[in-house]
């Protein structure tokens, strides 16, 4: 299998500008490979959220090409994009929980949007609530949850449908160190099951928690890849201790 066939996401010469302002992202070029764990770092205003918005298909780039799951997403008709989005999990920086839905219903949302039968929704969502330590808050509305609890609901919603690519924007920003570590372990566990994970963070301590992760650093809208690992990652994509081989991303 050639490397281009393996990659799950490919950005080529991508630029993004809002209106007539100067580009917030310039000449972005990288590839993401299945089963890898990426950290996206950079100072505030470096363009991390803009890059993530391109990744979770909330925004079209001003120029360049983006391929996702082996297909060009720029030229896709709008009606095809939901099928791409259903293979993504997104943890938004501001959580974006639906205010009038309970924690349970918020987490169940991706399954319901995907058409999973109601009978098949109950157990996975209940398990996920337990997993993020909110088993007793299933009926709570977001407004009654603390910032950390809301963040965990947002993460549970992002991972419930076992996405091929998980994109998380500062997912540990509102939780204490212990919970941050637990959440990173959750992402790692998901990663071991084959999901490619991209975590945007400015917390450099987190980077050391996932030894096999790859670093994408943004600086003033430019992506630096000093080691070339984004373009040419090491041959063995998974840690030797990982029990699960990455899934075949070709569906």
């Amino acid at each position, binding site marked *: 299998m050639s490397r281009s066939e393996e990659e799950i996401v490919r950005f080529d010469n991508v630029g993004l500008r809002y209106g007539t302002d100067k580009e917030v992202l310039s000449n972005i070029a990288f590839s993401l490979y299945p089963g890898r764990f990426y950290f996206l770092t950079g100072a505030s205003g470096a363009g991390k959220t803009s890059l993530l918005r391109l990744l*979770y*298909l*909330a*925004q*079209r780039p001003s120029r360049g090409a983006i391929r996702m799951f082996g297909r060009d997403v720029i030229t896709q008709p*709008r*009606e095809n*994009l*939901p*099928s*791409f*989005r*259903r*293979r*993504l999990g*997104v943890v938004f920086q501001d959580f*974006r*929980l*639906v*205010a*009038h*839905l309970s924690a349970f*219903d918020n987490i169940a*949302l*991706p*399954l*319901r*949007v*995907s*058409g*999973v039968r*109601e009978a*098949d929704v109950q*157990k*996975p969502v209940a*398990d*996920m609530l*337990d*997993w*993020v*330590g909110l088993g007793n808050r299933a009926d709570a509305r977001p407004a009654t949850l603390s910032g950390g609890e809301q963040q965990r609901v947002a993460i549970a*919603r992002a*991972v*419930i*449908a*076992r996405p091929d690519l998980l994109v998380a924007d500062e997912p540990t920003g509102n939780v204490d160190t212990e919970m941050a570590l*637990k959440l990173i*372990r*959750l992402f790692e*566990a*998901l990663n071991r*099951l084959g999901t490619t994970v991209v975590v945007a963070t400015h917390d450099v301590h987190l980077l050391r928690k996932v030894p096999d992760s790859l670093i994408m650093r943004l600086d003033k809208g430019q992506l630096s890849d000093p080691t070339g690992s984004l373009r040419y990652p090491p041959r063995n994509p998974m840690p030797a201790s990982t029990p699960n081989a990455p899934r075949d991303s070709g*569906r």
Partner: protein
Amino acid sequence: MSKPPVMTRAIERGLAPLKGRRASHLLPRARLGGPMPWVIAIMVALTVLAAGGALALTNLVDRARADLAGGVTVQIVEADPVLRAAQADRAMATLRDLPGVGTLRRVPQAELEALIEPWLGGGVRSEVVPLPALIDVRLDGEVGDATLDGLRSALAEVAPDARIDAQSDWLGPVFSAIAALRWLAIGLIALLAFTSAAAVWLAARNALNANRSTIEVVHLLGGTDGQIARIFQRSVLIDAALGGAVGLVLGAVALTVLGAQFAALDAGLVQGGGLGGFDWLLMGLVPFAAVAIALLTARMTVLASLRKML
């Protein structure tokens, strides 16, 4: 937190519909809280009234036309009562022998006096106010100009003072006025439908703005435009159905009361303007049309707004 839950991988990657209760829960419920159901109720009530009026006028015209279809009135306008009676007798005899004449009736003098009594009072002496002799003729077919000309030439010799008119001509201006009223009602119905659509458009836009964050989340989770539009349609369906039902009841009650008032007039022309079973069935369709307009408007509004997103 020991290990991740075992998540079933039974997720349909296809674009399955998000429908039913779980879809309706995505929007906060504000049934009857907002003005939408009441706006639709008022629109439906007014439409039922306008439609009822238009249908009643149509019935009235149809019945009047049917009654007057073959009717011709022959007036012998002669001041001398003897000559007048003689001409009337000869006219009756001539008409009776003409082909195409169904029935003939000479309007009795007492009936003529009763006709003018409201204006001139009772006991009017015929030598003071000479009344023409009237002959009510029913022809077998429609009355056209050629028929009238034929009658005129037939009576020219025997009753030179005869004036012959088609009865439908007398009501021509009335029919024109009623036709104008009917068009007015149709115009009103069209305006009400347009106003209903505009009200739903505004309500859908408000709902979109109020729920924009929810919509964006569903959109970014892979919800299709159709799925999101259906969530709104379901909400609008319930509002429109409630409003339509209330509006139909209000409109039907108002029409029934009005109908009873007109029936009490006991006037010949108005009596023909009642509503039949088919008319009520047509008016029963008004709420369904309102719901259809509301659904279509909501769908188009939501889809147009969603198309602005990637």
